[in-house]
């Protein structure tokens, strides 16, 4: 089947980002043609300001040079403007007559600077500030002329003015409003910023409306006249009074436009579904964006659909602004103006040049504006996005995240502001500086790369969110950081966890070689990352049918003991519900002595750990423990671990339910259960919750009329309180509901997702729907779990008895 034709009109950042995403996910789907009006490949338009200021050079801001297009077999027509779209015959035509057919059309025509409709606007020396040509023109004028006026003191105007000042020009900024950057700043912030900029040599005229541009003798612009009569001599006029989406082409093609090409949540034109549009030329839910982050989000969604996945949705973005005028930091987000009905918290240090304002409504951050110190910008943005209730931290909200950190660990907003010496990865001792260095020196672009090269996020993984943020802030947010849904399992495949699980189910795959073959793995035997995942997916999807490959299990699960740093192992016999007997304790003590176990430790899971056992001794140790009636505690697996209990109604004067009893019943029910990651339960006899059910994967709390069930808690990596699922009346119901939830997690979870990550991903609503609202679904899930665990043997006893399973513990010697 031949390739479909994708034509893109426009060659800017948002458009090319879309192409990059499409090539990543469907590299062979399209023959791609690009029409760009400018004579260059794709460059970072945002970096034009550092170029103007002399801080960067043009080659440095190229994102995709001409070779990139050739390498990806993209036909690139530069310097050609598309002037017509024939939607019936599906052809676009450029100004030089070049035509291209399309199956899908991507309009990324960007925006154009608004040129004031005043006399003299077309004189030489009057330019917009949009592209490389404008920038080069300004640099040229700065070489030979002195005076410049910038019309517009918005984001772009101030950057232009600053650049020209650094190039040696005498610059005046003329602005219509009362204060500068009035779209992002309130008056105090605007005034403070103006003072800082005036200190750098910029001059300002506010409440000033330009009425005429006057030519000099040489025909070039020589002066600018304001409404109040003031005349400013100038050699250069930069129009930075706003941008307008470039909809000329779309309008000619009768696509619905309204201050931009109107698109829906899948980035398709509402008029013609074959035509996608992203970027500054777009109008989405009545908003047009001019900042890169939302445009990249749009690009990813458009690419998702163009690649044929059809699941991306763009619902709009919450944006924040960070100004890049060298030396002066400015940040703005949301409803920063405040006023009636809002709470404002303000820190205003005139002499120190710091202004910070946080606007709250109903105890949530709804906006913020800062000048001089924007360290906490990312944090306020996060709080705003999360709609977090900040009542508890309100008192120190103004003093910043690092101050509030002790109360609220939120790694995601630390990235930009943390110092290079700050430790990011506690497991491997990697600090931010190491990561940033590796990213820059080796050109890393994904968390996987950072993991490989620095070991950060390579162990427990709890810092991977922060690593991701550091990556984005170091690389400048111009690269995609893929989300869990589409991320490949490992380097052996392009497939994500979801795709693989689905395929195993849909095609009834029963062995790992089947999966590697069917899904076209690019390695012959996979790797240490995918093999254990595949093994789990197979046995959990097709219990008692799929092959359980010991060689694809991590050593702990293969050997049914935890490997320690010196190659010895730990042995943890099961103590149901944390209960034991004198005989069991004696058996443990005897084993400890007989096999010279160096360390005997009580675990958090309410049992005893024998640490330092030699591998060759394991079968004998197990045999001795089996004789005392003890079986494997599965302390080593991505499996059920323990069901902790508190004393409960049996003895405790407060207990409302018999928690020890319930705990033992649950543990016996779940014995031998393999899961995407470890699973820990607890049963408390009353709401005092002494068994800490609030931070368990499934936590049961006895109440007067029955039991509360809470799920998806976590006491470790990402400490999260469990969410309330339901209340039930009987022990049997506790087993049914807990079992159903766990089975759902087993069937849908991605390998190495704890229940907290899983529920975060699918949402509590989904859980409730499958486990609470739909009784049939719940009973079926429960039945499938029980079926899976039917007659589950003690893995220790198996290995004691069966010679072939015992082999792995027996070392070879040369005398053999």
């Amino acid at each position, binding site marked *: 089947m031949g390739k479909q034709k994708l034509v893109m009109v426009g060659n800017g950042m948002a458009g090319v980002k879309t192409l990059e995403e499409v090539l990543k996910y469907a590299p062979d789907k399209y023959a791609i043609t690009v029409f760009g009006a400018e004579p260059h490949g794709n460059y970072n338009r945002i970096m034009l300001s550092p170029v103007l200021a002399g801080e960067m050079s043009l080659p440095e801001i190229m994102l995709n040079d001409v070779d990139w297009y050739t390498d990806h077999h993209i036909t690139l027509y530069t310097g050609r403007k598309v002037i017509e779209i024939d939607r019936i015959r599906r052809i676009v035509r450029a100004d030089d007559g070049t035509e291209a057919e399309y199956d899908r059309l991507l309009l990324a025509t960007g925006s154009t600077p608004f040129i004031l409709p005043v006399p003299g606007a077309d004189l030489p020396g009057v330019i917009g500030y949009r592209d490389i040509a404008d920038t080069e023109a300004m640099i040229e004028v700065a070489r030979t002329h002195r005076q410049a006026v910038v019309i517009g003191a918005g984001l772009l105007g101030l950057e232009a003015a600053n650049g020209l000042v650094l190039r040696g020009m005498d610059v005046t900024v003329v602005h219509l409003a009362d204060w500068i950057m009035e779209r992002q700043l309130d008056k105090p912030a605007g005034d403070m910023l103006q003072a800082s900029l005036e200190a750098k040599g910029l001059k300002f005229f506010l409440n000033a409306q330009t009425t005429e541009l006057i030519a000099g003798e040489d025909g070039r612009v020589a002066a600018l006249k304001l409404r109040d009569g003031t005349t400013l001599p100038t050699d250069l006029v930069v129009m930075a009074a706003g941008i307008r989406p470039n909809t000329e082409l779309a309008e000619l093609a009768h696509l619905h436009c309204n201050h931009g090409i109107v698109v829906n949540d899948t980035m398709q034109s509402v008029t013609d579904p074959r035509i996608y549009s992203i970027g500054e030329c777009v109008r989405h839910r009545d908003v047009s964006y001019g900042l890169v982050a939302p445009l990249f989000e749009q690009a990813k969604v458009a690419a998702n659909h163009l690649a044929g996945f059809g699941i991306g949705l763009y619902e709009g973005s919450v944006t924040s602004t960070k100004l890049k005028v060298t030396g002066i930091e400015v940040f703005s987000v949301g409803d920063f103006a405040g006023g009636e009905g809002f709470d404002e918290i303000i820190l205003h240090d005139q002499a120190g040049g710091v202004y910070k304002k946080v606007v709250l409504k109903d105890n949530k951050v709804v906006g913020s504006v800062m000048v001089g110190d924007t360290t906490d910008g990312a944090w306020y943005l996060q709080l705003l996005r999360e709609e977090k209730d900040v009542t508890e931290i309100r008192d120190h909200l103004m003093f910043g995240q690092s101050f509030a950190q002790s109360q609220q660990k939120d790694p995601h907003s630390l990235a930009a502001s943390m110092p290079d010496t700050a430790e990011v990865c506690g497991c491997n001792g990697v600090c931010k500086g190491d990561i940033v260095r590796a990213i820059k020196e080796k050109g890393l672009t994904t968390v996987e790369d950072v993991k490989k090269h620095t070991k950060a996020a390579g162990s427990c993984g709890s810092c991977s969110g922060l690593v991701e943020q550091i990556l984005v802030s170091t690389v400048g947010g111009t690269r995609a950081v893929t989300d869990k849904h589409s991320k490949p399992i490992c380097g052996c495949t392009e497939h994500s966890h979801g795709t693989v699980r689905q395929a195993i189910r849909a095609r009834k795959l029963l062995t790992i070689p089947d999966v590697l073959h069917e899904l076209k793995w690019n*390695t012959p035997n996979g790797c*240490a990352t995918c093999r254990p995942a595949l093994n789990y997916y197979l046995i959990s999807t097709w219990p008692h049918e799929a092959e359980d490959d010991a*060689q694809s299990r991590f*050593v702990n699960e293969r050997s049914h003991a935890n490997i320690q740093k010196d*190659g010895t192992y730990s042995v943890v016999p099961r103590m149901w519900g944390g209960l034991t007997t004198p005989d069991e304790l004696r058996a443990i003590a005897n084993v400890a002595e007989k096999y010279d176990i160096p360390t005997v430790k009580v675990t958090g899971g309410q049992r005893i750990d024998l640490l330092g056992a030699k591998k060759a001794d394991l079968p004998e140790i197990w045999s001795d423990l089996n004789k005392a009636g003890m079986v494997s505690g599965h302390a080593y697996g991505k499996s059920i671990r323990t069901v902790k209990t508190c004393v409960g109604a049996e003895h405790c004067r407060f207990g409302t339910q018999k928690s020890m009893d319930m705990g033992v019943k649950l543990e016996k029910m779940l014995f031998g259960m393999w899961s995407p990651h470890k699973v820990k339960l607890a049963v408390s006899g009353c709401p005092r919750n002494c068994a800490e059910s609030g931070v368990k994967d499934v936590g049961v709390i006895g109440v007067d009329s029955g039991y509360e069930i809470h799920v998806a808690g976590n006491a470790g990596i990402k400490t999260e309180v469990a969410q309330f699922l339901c209340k039930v009346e009987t022990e049997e119901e506790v087993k049914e509901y807990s079992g159903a939830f766990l089975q759902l997690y087993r069937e849908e979870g991605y390998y190495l997702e704890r229940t907290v990550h899983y529920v975060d991903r699918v949402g509590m609503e989904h859980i409730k729907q499958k486990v609470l609202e739909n009784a049939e679904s719940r009973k079926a899930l429960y039945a499938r779990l029980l079926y899976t665990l039917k007659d589950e043997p003690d893995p220790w006893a198996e290995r004691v008895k069966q010679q072939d399973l015992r082999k792995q513990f027996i*070392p*070879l010697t040369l005398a053999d």
Partner: protein
Amino acid sequence: MSDTTAKLVWHHVCAVEDIPKLGARRLEETPHGPVAIFRNNEDEVFALLDRCPHKNGPLSAGIVHGRSVTCPLHNWRIQFEDGQAMEPDVGCTRHFAVKTEDGQVMIQL
């Protein structure tokens, strides 16, 4: 402990079948320390010192893939051919000559 001028001799270790496919057995008490004997999916046999160049982890307990193994302690990947760690890790563990004869594994020590 080992005499570097001693002549290398072939020793019988075990049957190929004694080593699980995509797995390993550990050979103890050699003059050089413990040796991991690997068998890959193509029934090729390899031998490395059973100590990861990183922190001496038991490579014999790792997951085998292609012609390499992932150390169970900290996930270093070691190539069978020459005992070298795969990038970006740097390190090397000793490898030994190994062959199969009539389904029996022989090692040169």
